[in-house]
């Protein structure tokens, strides 16, 4: 993995982070680290405190212990975050175009006086990157779930983040939206050099694509490179024994290859057609190709 950041530096370090809401202990003595410039996934079952931990990183909730950003030591500033929520619930009848929405967070001049060329140009560059340039003048409320996720990704990238946080970005979106977790994000990470932190309960995606994984169920049960950290013991402790877990280590090395329909098989320019054709069926595109490990990606991880 080529990363412009120092390979040894951590973007985030959790030191004994704890949080109690009412009588429920949400986070208990969480110690973990998020390597800089890499893709880290936080996995765990529903209600494990994953989203709470995200809020803690963002400084939106009080907690005990410390959350440090060693990468920025000495600069005296807090990291810039980009954030893509799980699923955007909003009033779809608000009259605004995609461009209106993206400008609303950036432009100082009120939108009723017009759009500034400087911001519009910059936004168009990012919309092109997420393959949404054609949507700039569409009504934001009329977009599909996957299109909204990509617009939100463009919005997060427009922040020029140090750390990009994605909360279950692929849940409940179409195949094209699911792409976010795979190819698109890897390209952006290499291009912009941010640290990517994804919350996920999709183990298959994590094993295939993440550089680093943190297993969280109120406590940290294990962390490290997915193929090393995700042992049977760690997984059953994190997710509970009753789950039928995929045997991630039982896959023979020689079948580490994508099936025909795996998105990673296709180069970028093919991605587009592919998705429109198959959009409906492959609601878990990443899962499909992550069920076995991807040769190319596994190579990076090792």
């Amino acid at each position: 993995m080529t990363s412009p950041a120092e390979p040894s530096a951590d973007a985030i370090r959790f030191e004994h982070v704890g949080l109690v809401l009412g009588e429920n202990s949400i986070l208990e003595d969480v110690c973990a680290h998020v390597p800089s410039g890499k893709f880290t996934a936080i996995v765990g079952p529903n209600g494990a405190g994953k989203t709470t931990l995200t809020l803690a990183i963002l400084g939106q909730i009080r907690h005990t212990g410390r959350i440090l950003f060693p990468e920025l030591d000495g600069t005296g500033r807090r990291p810039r975050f980009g954030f893509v929520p799980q699923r955007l619930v909003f009033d779809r009848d608000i009259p605004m175009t995609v461009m209106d929405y993206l400008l609303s967070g950036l432009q100082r001049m009120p939108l009723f006086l017009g759009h500034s060329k400087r911001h519009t140009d910059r936004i168009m560059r990012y919309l092109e990157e997420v393959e949404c340039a054609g949507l700039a003048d569409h009504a934001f409320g009329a977009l599909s779930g996957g299109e909204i996720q990509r617009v939100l990704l463009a919005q997060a990238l427009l922040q020029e983040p140090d750390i990009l946080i994605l909360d279950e970005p692929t849940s409940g979106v179409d195949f094209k939206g699911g792409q976010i977790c795979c190819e698109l994000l890897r390209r952006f990470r290499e291009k912009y050099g941010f640290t990517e932190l994804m919350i996920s309960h999709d183990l298959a995606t994590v094993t295939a694509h993440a550089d680093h994984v943190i297993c969280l169920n109120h406590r940290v049960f294990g962390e490290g490179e997915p193929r090393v950290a995700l042992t049977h013991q760690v997984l059953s402790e994190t997710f509970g024994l009753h789950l039928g877990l995929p045997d991630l280590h039982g896959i023979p090395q020689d079948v580490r290859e994508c099936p025909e329909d795996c998105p990673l098989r296709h180069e970028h320019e093919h991605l587009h057609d592919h998705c429109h054709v198959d959009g409906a069926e492959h609601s878990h595109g990443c899962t499909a190709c992550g069920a076995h490990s991807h040769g190319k990606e596994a190579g990076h991880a090792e």
Partner: protein
Amino acid sequence: MLNELLLRLSEFAPPEFMRQAMLGLLLIAPLAALSGVQVVNSRMSFFSDAIGHSAFAGVAIGLIFSLPIDLSMAGLALAVGLIITYLRRGSRLSTDTVIGIIFSAVVAFGLAIVSRNREASRNVNMFLYGDILTIDDREIAMLAVLLAVFLAFQFFAWNRMLHISVNEQIAVVHRVNVPVYQYLFSALLSLVVILCVRAVGVLLVTAVLIVPAATARNFARNSRQLFFLSLLFSYASCAGGLLISAQRWANVPAGAAIVLLACAMFAVSFAAARLRRK
């Protein structure tokens, strides 16, 4: 009583009063239209209702402490607006519950005090239905100052208010100072509502805010059109409503005429939007 004399005279709607009323409405229309847009976007119509109903308690406080009624009304509206915003932000109670509790408290308090005072209970009718025809220079001046401040806020905050209304959490993470915008807007909205109560009454004040904005939503395709169309519909209903109310055949209060006209426009826009979608 000067008030009664004015009321008598207003039945004939002499041009001087009409001019004054029209001037008042020209100031109220943009206040109502633009705050209405954000009330609709942020689902704050219940909030606006609660502020309107705080008028009774405002009158009561004015009586108890012998303050000018308009000052005590504005002061209480501001306090209620900021308290609701504070509780809404900091508590796990749902917004509806928070507003509902404060709503009931201010109405009950207002009724309790006002009903003990015969003079004041006669005034209550005026706040229930409002009366734009008796608006005086002092109130016009207050509206003009509020409009200036409010427009300045819109220049500063229109974009960010839109951003926040789509998703508050994204706005926070992307370094929008959400509390500042929310408190400023709540404060200004409270003042807008309480000054509009004087014109159209407690019962109709929320309608004056949200109906033109809702109508504009049915036609607007982007944020800019929403801004100008809501102004257009607000001006049209205010001016049209006042003119209709002044006709001998109509003989209805201005507030009612304004809201009826605004609702008629909404009905047309709703039908038009339906047809367009088909």
